[in-house]
């Protein structure tokens, strides 16, 4: 709300406040009065006055009260209303203050929308405008301050009013120092003068031009600057000047550097001896160095480059020549070339040109720099070298030809070609001097017709050019023979040949031939060419000589090789003869023959030495007496013995002349003159000597001696070997005999278990023939029976052990090929070779059945003794004890005693049996023949059976012919029958019957012992008569098991027969037959 309205409102309000209650009071009081009046109260005027005073005082009181209230209210309102205004005013005041202080960012808040508000707004706008203006001004200030170039402002009196920081930096003075001082203080006198002049020139206003000057800085140094300035106007009035400096020191520096660089480059350019030209796009020379300037007769700069270089009016490229400048202009790259010009004197000149571009920043070629060098001399040198080189190359290739080939014709033709080629001739030929040395023949030619050669090809030495060359041994050349006066009397003079030369081919001692070369053009032979030709001639000559030498050597070598071959063939045949022969004697003779015939000897013999040093004849080419005898004893000095002592082949040219040698009769008897004795050695041991005798003299070449030595070695080895062999055979014979004689089977096997040999005993034991066994693996030999698997295992184990170097032995049971089983002892022993390795095994297989048997018997006997005897002994001992102790009465005692007796007899029988066995075994048993009446015999025996009979409650029946008798050993008969009856009783139940039947037949006595006992099981039948065999019942029945064996033996001893019949459960029948014989 606008202020005015505020005031009006306020006024009205207050007015109302004051008036209204006043009015109301008045009204009230008046009303009261009126009312009172109307109520009849009298109202006098004094009442009116009183009433008026009353009212007035009441009003007055109330008015005062109201007035107080109003006052307070008005105060409050005034404060309230004025607050807003005051705030705004305060704000304005603060704002102005800020502005004064320079803070233009102040923005007053507009709180009211009245005039004050407007003022505030206006104020803000004002400050904003001020701010902008100030900022603008500040920016300008900033620009100025930021300027790199120093700037100053001077007033009319040229006193510095303001400077920018760049200025203070440049001059080194602080701002304060600078302000107020004269600008001219910074310039020296000269420059000051210049500077003073400037303002005058500025009269036309605006900016002054730029001047170069120097400014003095605080430390006294001079700074090159560019200065420019302008006048400051205020309207039409000049209020000051402004100046700007540009620090020119860097540029000044650069400028001086550039200057010195330019001078430097120019110096270089001028010092170079080559021409340097700078050419522009129009091919004009814009710059040239001193050399170029000096060379030219006319002006250089501005002249066309082609005029300068080639004296050409038109550019080179327009005439089809290459122009380096043009190339560079087009390609923009460096270009190098060599140009050839004709010089002033018409001579060739070579120039090497190197052209380089000068480009502008965008890469376009502005100018071209040409460096031109006169290389004529160099080129000429190069040509010379090239020429020389090709000469060397030619020489090199010639020597190459000469060294590569071994064939003369090849060499000649190649060299001739090369020479012709090298010298660019048209042709040539080679003349050879014959053996006589007088004539020369042309044998190789090129470029000449045959007819011409026929005519021309034969000349005498000394004649014509080639002949002369051959004679004098020097090269002769002529550039043109047709015109050469020094060459006359030559066939070629009018042949059209011009260039001509002849070269001698020089061998080691003489001229071998002549090369001749010709051309139909003139040819100037240079000194170098002549040198080359001479060299070629010499080289060729040398080569030819070498070839000749080589041929000679090869011939020699081939001859020697042949000799060697022959020698070797002979040695081979001799050594193979010796090697294959077993009987040395048979072979020595032909060998000696070969040696004798090879060396053309008249007699040859070979003597062997024994350990005492005697020499015995072993073989000779002719028959001699007492072959094999000692020819020279060790006491005698013989040629052979002498050579043996010297250990080298010894040649005696005159055997008779030298009396120190004793000659054996066979030698002495012939008229031999010379001998070569060759000792045969194995290591240090002399085996013997062989010698060749000649009727005439004989000289031996080294290779012959060498050959003879080799033969000696071979013979020595053979002789030695045959000795060993003979010994070995003898030993083998001996060992064979031993082997075969041995009773044990011996099988020798090699390292892999294959049988090498077996002896007779082996055959006998195993039943395997030797020829079948040899070669088989040892265990395979015994495969004939499956039951041999264990045996083979044991054998294998022994063998394996022996292979490892340990003797192995095992006991085993072997089944022989015939089916028998024998106990064997296997013993395998390794055979060691010289190094201690096992090369084989000797296996011994010994039949130990007998031993085993004996062992068994021993065991059995012991068993028998220990067991069988104890029972009867028990009776004897026990009963005797009881009798002695009186344990029993007399009757009993009698019984006891008879038991003792019969048991004793039983014991005795058993002992007899054992003794019989012993005797039978030892083979010492004898038969005492006596006539025995059987009946009597049997009755004697029945007593001894008594206890057994009683025990068994058995019955023995005798059925014996009255007169039956037998001529036999009585004791044995008793034994026989006792055993049989014993058996019958033992192997029967109680109450058995034993029948003894005896019949006398014509052939002999037949005895039959039968029982009705248990019978013999089938499995026991075959073994009945084996010693100690006790059969199935053996475990339970007492007895030695010897009985039937003894019976059989006894019967056999008497020449009789025994056989047994039995069936289990059906008793046993023993049939005996004893032949009759005469009683002694």
């Amino acid at each position: 709300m606008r202020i005015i309205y505020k005031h009006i409102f306020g006024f009205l309000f207050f007015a109302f406040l004051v008036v209204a209650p006043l009015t109301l009071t008045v009204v009230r009081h008046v009303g009261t009065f009126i009312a009172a009046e109307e109520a009849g109260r009298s109202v006098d005027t004094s009442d009116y006055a009183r009433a008026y005073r009353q009212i007035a005082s009441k009003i007055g009181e109330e008015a005062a009260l109201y007035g107080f209230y109003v006052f307070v209210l008005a105060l409050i309102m005034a404060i309230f209303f004025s607050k807003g205004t005051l705030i705004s005013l305060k704000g304005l005041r603060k704002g102005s203050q800020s502005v004064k202080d320079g803070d233009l960012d102040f923005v007053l808040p507009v709180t009211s929308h009245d005039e004050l508000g407007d003022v505030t707004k206006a104020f803000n706008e004002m400050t904003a405008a001020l701010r902008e203006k100030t900022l603008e001004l500040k920016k300008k200030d900033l620009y100025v301050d930021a300027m790199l170039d120093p700037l100053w402002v001077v007033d009319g009196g040229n006193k510095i009013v303001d400077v920018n920081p760049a200025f203070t930096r440049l001059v080194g003075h602080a701002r304060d120092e600078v302000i107020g001082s004269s600008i001219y203080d910074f310039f020296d006198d000269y420059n000051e003068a210049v500077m003073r002049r400037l303002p005058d020139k500025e009269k036309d206003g605006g900016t002054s031009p730029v001047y170069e000057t120097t400014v003095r800085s605080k430390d006294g140094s001079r700074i090159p600057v560019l200065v420019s300035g302008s006048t400051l106007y205020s309207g039409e009035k000049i209020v000051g000047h402004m100046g700007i400096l540009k620090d020119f020191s860097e540029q000044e520096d650069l400028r001086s550097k550039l200057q010195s660089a330019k001078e430097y480059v120019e110096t270089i350019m001028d010092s170079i001896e080559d021409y340097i030209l700078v050419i522009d796009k129009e091919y004009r020379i814009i710059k040239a160095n001193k050399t170029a300037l000096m060379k030219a007769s006319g002006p250089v700069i501005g002249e066309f480059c082609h005029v300068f270089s080639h004296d050409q009016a038109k550019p080179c490229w327009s005439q089809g020549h290459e122009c380096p400048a043009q190339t560079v202009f087009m390609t923009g790259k460096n270009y190098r070339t060599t140009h050839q010009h004709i010089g002033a004197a018409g001579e060739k000149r070579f120039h090497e040109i190197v052209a380089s571009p000068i480009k502008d920043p965008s890469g376009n070629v502005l100018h071209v720099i040409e460096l031109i060098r006169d290389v004529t001399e160099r080129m000429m040198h190069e040509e010379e070298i090239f020429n020389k080189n090709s000469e060397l190359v030619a020489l090199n290739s010639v020597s190459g030809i000469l060294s590569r080939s071994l064939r003369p014709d090849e060499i000649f033709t190649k060299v001739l070609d090369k020479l012709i080629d090298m010298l660019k001739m048209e042709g040539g030929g080679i003349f050879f001097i014959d053996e006589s040395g007088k004539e020369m023949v042309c044998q190789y030619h090129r470029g000449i017709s045959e007819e011409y050669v026929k005519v021309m090809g034969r000349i005498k030495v000394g004649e014509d050019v080639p002949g002369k060359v051959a004679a004098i041994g020097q090269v002769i050349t002529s550039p043109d023979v047709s015109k050469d006066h020094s060459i006359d009397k030559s066939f070629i003079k009018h042949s059209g040949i011009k260039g001509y030369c002849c070269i001698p081919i020089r061998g080691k001692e003489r001229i071998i031939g002549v090369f001749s070369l010709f051309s139909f053009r003139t040819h100037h032979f240079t000194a170098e060419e002549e040198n080359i030709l001479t060299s070629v001639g010499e080289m060729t000559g040398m080569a030819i000589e070498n070839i000749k030498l080589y041929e000679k050597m090869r011939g020699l070598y081939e001859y020697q090789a042949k000799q060697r071959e022959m020698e070797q063939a002979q040695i081979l045949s001799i050594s193979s003869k010796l090697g294959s022969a077993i009987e040395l004697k048979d072979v020595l003779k032909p060998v000696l023959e070969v040696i004798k015939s090879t060396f053309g000897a008249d007699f040859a013999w070979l003597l062997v030495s024994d350990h005492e040093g005697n020499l015995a004849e072993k073989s000779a080419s002719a028959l001699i007496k007492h072959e094999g005898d000692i020819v020279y004893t060790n006491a005698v000095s013989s040629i052979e013995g002498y050579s043996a002592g010297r250990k080298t082949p010894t040649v005696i040219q005159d055997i008779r002349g030298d009396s120190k040698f004793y000659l054996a009769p066979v030698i002495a008897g012939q008229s031999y003159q010379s001998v070569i004795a060759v000792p045969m050695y194995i290591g240090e041991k002399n085996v013997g000597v062989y010698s060749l005798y000649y009727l005439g003299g004989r000289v031996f070449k080294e290779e012959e001696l060498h050959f003879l030595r080799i033969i000696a070695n071979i013979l020595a080895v053979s002789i030695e070997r045959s000795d060993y062999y003979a010994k070995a055979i003898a030993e083998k014979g001996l060992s064979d005999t031993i082997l075969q004689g041995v009773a044990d089977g011996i099988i020798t096997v090699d390292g892999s278990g294959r049988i090498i040999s077996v002896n007779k005993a082996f055959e006998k034991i195993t039943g395997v023939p030797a020829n079948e066994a040899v070669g088989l693996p040892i265990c395979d030999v015994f495969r004939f029976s499956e039951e041999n698997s264990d045996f083979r295992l044991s054998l294998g184990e022994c063998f394996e052990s022996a292979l490892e170097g340990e003797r192995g032995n095992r006991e085993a049971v072997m089944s022989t090929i015939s089916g028998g089983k024998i106990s064997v002892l296997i013993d395998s022993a390794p055979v060691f070779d010289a190094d201690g390795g096992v090369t084989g095994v000797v296996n011994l297989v010994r039949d130990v059945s007998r031993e085993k048997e004996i062992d068994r018997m021993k065991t059995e006997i012991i068993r028998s003794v220990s067991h069988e005897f104890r029972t009867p002994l028990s009776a004897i001992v026990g009963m005797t004890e009881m009798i002695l102790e009186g344990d029993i009465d007399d009757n009993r005692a009698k019984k006891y005693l008879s038991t003792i007796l019969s048991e004793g007899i039983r014991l005795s029988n058993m002992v007899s049996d054992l003794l019989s066995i012993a005797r039978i075994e030892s083979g010492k048993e004898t038969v005492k023949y006596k006539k025995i009446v059987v009946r009597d015999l049997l009755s004697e025996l029945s007593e001894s059976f008594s206890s057994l009979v009683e025990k068994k409650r058995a019955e023995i029946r005798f059925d014996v012919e009255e007169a039956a008798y037998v001529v036999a050993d009585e004791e044995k008969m008793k034994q026989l029958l006792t055993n049989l009856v014993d058996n019958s009783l033992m192997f029967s139940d109680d109450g058995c019957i034993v029948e003894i039947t005896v019949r006398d037949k014509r052939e002999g006595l037949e005895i039959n012992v039968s029982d009705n006992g248990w019978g013999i099981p089938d499995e026991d039948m075959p073994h009945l008569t084996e010693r100690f065999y006790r059969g199935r019942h053996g475990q339970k029945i007492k007895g030695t098991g010897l009985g039937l064996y003894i019976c059989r033996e006894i019967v056999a001893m008497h020449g009789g027969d025994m056989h047994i019949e039995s069936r289990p459960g059906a008793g046993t029948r023993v049939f005996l037959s004893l032949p009759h014989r005469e009683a002694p």
Partner: protein
Amino acid sequence: MKKVVVIDDEPFILMMIEDKLRNARIDVVTLRSSVNAVEVIRKEKPGLVILDWMMPEISGIEVCRALKQDSETADIPIFMLTAKGQDADEQLGLRSGVARYITKPFSPRALLEMVQEVIGSDEQ
């Protein structure tokens, strides 16, 4: 008075032992065959059995084993008479439950002592 059963196929052995033991007032039952030995022993219930090893049909060891396996007769001590004299046999014998192993020839007196050791003490 306790009984002793003696089994041996050799009659004079039986006779000898019988006489000896009888004299010492020991009742003896003798058997020549081992066939029904076990039954007899079961019936007789002796205080001791004396067996011969080597017998036809059934050997002494077999009888011994049979007796030991039979609960009724297992406790009866057994003496083995034999001519076999090796240690191994003795071991076999003892393993079979033989109380004493007597080799032949033996002393009847010694045998009696051994028998009395076994049965002589209790006079039931």
